Each structure stands twice: as structure tokens, then as C-alpha cells.
């Protein structure tokens, strides 16, 4: 009786260790691009979403990046899906926000917007990833600020899907 009890504990322990190890490796490999980015789902095609964001940028000149040449553009890393990179400037905070927009693979009437990282100042190359390089509190604050300053102004319904590093 006691022996089978110990056996069960050992087997359970081994299973837990194996699961934790696989999860640990999975988290450290974390493939794909920008898994830390905050993901938003929209029920409109990406072309329409891009159009709306560009319209917002044109109407609010404070969102346009001064001095440096950093146009919004399509990504050349993917041969199948077209990812559109967008940059928004917070003039008061002197920060550049980097986002990308893509269509859902199966449902073309659905699109995703990813809030990837923030560059401090106008000198490029000082990017800090959201949900990674900032503390949890700072990330939440920046995400809320982004939703208030940009997403809510678009006037389109969205769902915050969190980041890809969390599976639960």
C-alpha cells in the first residue's frame, strides 16, 4: 500500500518535471515575430484598418514623426501575408510607437493590429519591446495610453487578445 503510494508520487513528479521542462523550452524558443507585442483583433479587413489609422495620422499632425524619414511600409519578411508597419509619434512624450497590421489568414474580413515597441526620442535604434523591456505596470500603462490616444479615436470596435507569450 505504502509502496504504491510512493510510486504514484514519483511518477507524478516525473510527469510534472517533464511538462515544466517542455514549457520552459517552449517559452525560451518562442518562435515567430514579436511574440511580446500586444495584439488587437478587428472585424474589418486590414486595408480598411490601415486607411483609418492613416486618416487619423493625417488629421492629427502631432502623430506624425518630425525630422526623420520613417514612412509606414509593407514588410518584406513574409512571402505570404502582407504586414504593414505603422509609426505613430507621441509629441509630448517624444516617443515613436511601432505597430503592424495584418489580415487574418482564413477570414479576410478580420484583421490584427500588433503594438510592438516604443523608441525613446527621435534617434532610431532605441526600441523597447512592450510586455518585455518595460515592467508589467509600465506596459499596462503604455497599453492603456495607446488605447486611449489611438485605438478609441479610430471609432472601430476591437478585442484585446493580449500577447502571444501567454497561452492561458
Amino acid at each position: 500500500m505504502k509502496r504504491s503510494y510512493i510510486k504514484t508520487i514519483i511518477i507524478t513528479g516525473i510527469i510534472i518535471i517533464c511538462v515544466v521542462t517542455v514549457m520552459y523550452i517552449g517559452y525560451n524558443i518562442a518562435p515567430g515575430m514579436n511574440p511580446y507585442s500586444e495584439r488587437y483583433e478587428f472585424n474589418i479587413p486590414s486595408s480598411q484598418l490601415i486607411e483609418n489609422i492613416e486618416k487619423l495620422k493625417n488629421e492629427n499632425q502631432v502623430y506624425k514623426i518630425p525630422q526623420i524619414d520613417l514612412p509606414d511600409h509593407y514588410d518584406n519578411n513574409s512571402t505570404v501575408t502582407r504586414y504593414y508597419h505603422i509609426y505613430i509619434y507621441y509629441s509630448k512624450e517624444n516617443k515613436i510607437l511601432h505597430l503592424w497590421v495584418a489580415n487574418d489568414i482564413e477570414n479576410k474580413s478580420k484583421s490584427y493590429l500588433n503594438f510592438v515597441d516604443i523608441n525613446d526620442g527621435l534617434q532610431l535604434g532605441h526600441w523597447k519591446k512592450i510586455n518585455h523591456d518595460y515592467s508589467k505596470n509600465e506596459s499596462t500603462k503604455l497599453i492603456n495610453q495607446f488605447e486611449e490616444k489611438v485605438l478609441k479615436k479610430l471609432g472601430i470596435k476591437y478585442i484585446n487578445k493580449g500577447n502571444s507569450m501567454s497561452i492561458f
Partner: protein
Amino acid sequence: MLNEAQPTWWTSFFLTNINYLMMPIRGGCPSCLVPSSVGHNWFGQTYLGPNNPVSQDGSDNFSYRPTNLADYPPVGHDRRYFNVGASGPSGVFLNQKTIGADYKLIAEEFEIANMQGLPINQRLTAAAVVIGIGFGALPKTINLLFTQPASGFA
């Protein structure tokens, strides 16, 4: 006999970072690699992990040539994930669209892990990927085989 000129460390450094060094003259190079963004993953790897090198414009940059052989297959793996719109552990554990990409990575890393004469750290890195991705992708593979046996893999 002619001696073939060997590049010195400073010429190699200059050639590797020419775009970055030319930035002040050119007035910026948004698609150039940010050298400080290299090697921020597990065991100092470049592409094997969530922190890929970035360009000046913040987008992922695949122009850096890794020194560890086990670091090459993740480049293709990342791109395949990108193509199906997947990323992170949720892509490995739950997304069935990435099964093809995962098993291709396993096959490539398995080959590296079995290469004779390769430094042991490179072989061990490749073996860790085979085990991690192999077991990580197993539940979704079994699920796909039982739910849609005739669907095949992407």
C-alpha cells in the same frame, strides 16, 4: 608565392557594420541592423528565441549571420510562423497551422545534433530544440490526427 591578404579585426568590423557606420553620412538607414539587438536569446543565440535582431525602424531583421549552426533553422521557422500569423508559445503548443513548420525545424535541428565533429554546445542546443519543440508540438499533432486525419500538415 603570393600571400592571400587576411582581413584584420577592424576591417571585418567595418565591413560587418558598414551600413550602421554610414548612417550619419546617409542621414539614417531604417532597414539597417541594430548591432546591439543581436544575441539576446537563450544561451546568447540570435534567432532561437523571442528576441530577434531588429532594424533601425523596429522591424525584425534577418541579415545577421549566426555563429552557431543550430541558430540557422529558427530563421526559416520564424518566417513560416510569420506566414501563418502565429507566434510565441501559444503557436508551439496550440496552433495546428504551425505543425509543418515545427517538424521541419525538428528535422533540421536533429541533423545538426547528429553532426560529428561539431562543437558540443551547438549539438546540445540543437538537441534541446528537438526535445522542446518535439514534445511541445506533440499534443496538437495528436489532436489534429484524431480530429482531421485526412487534412495533412501545412
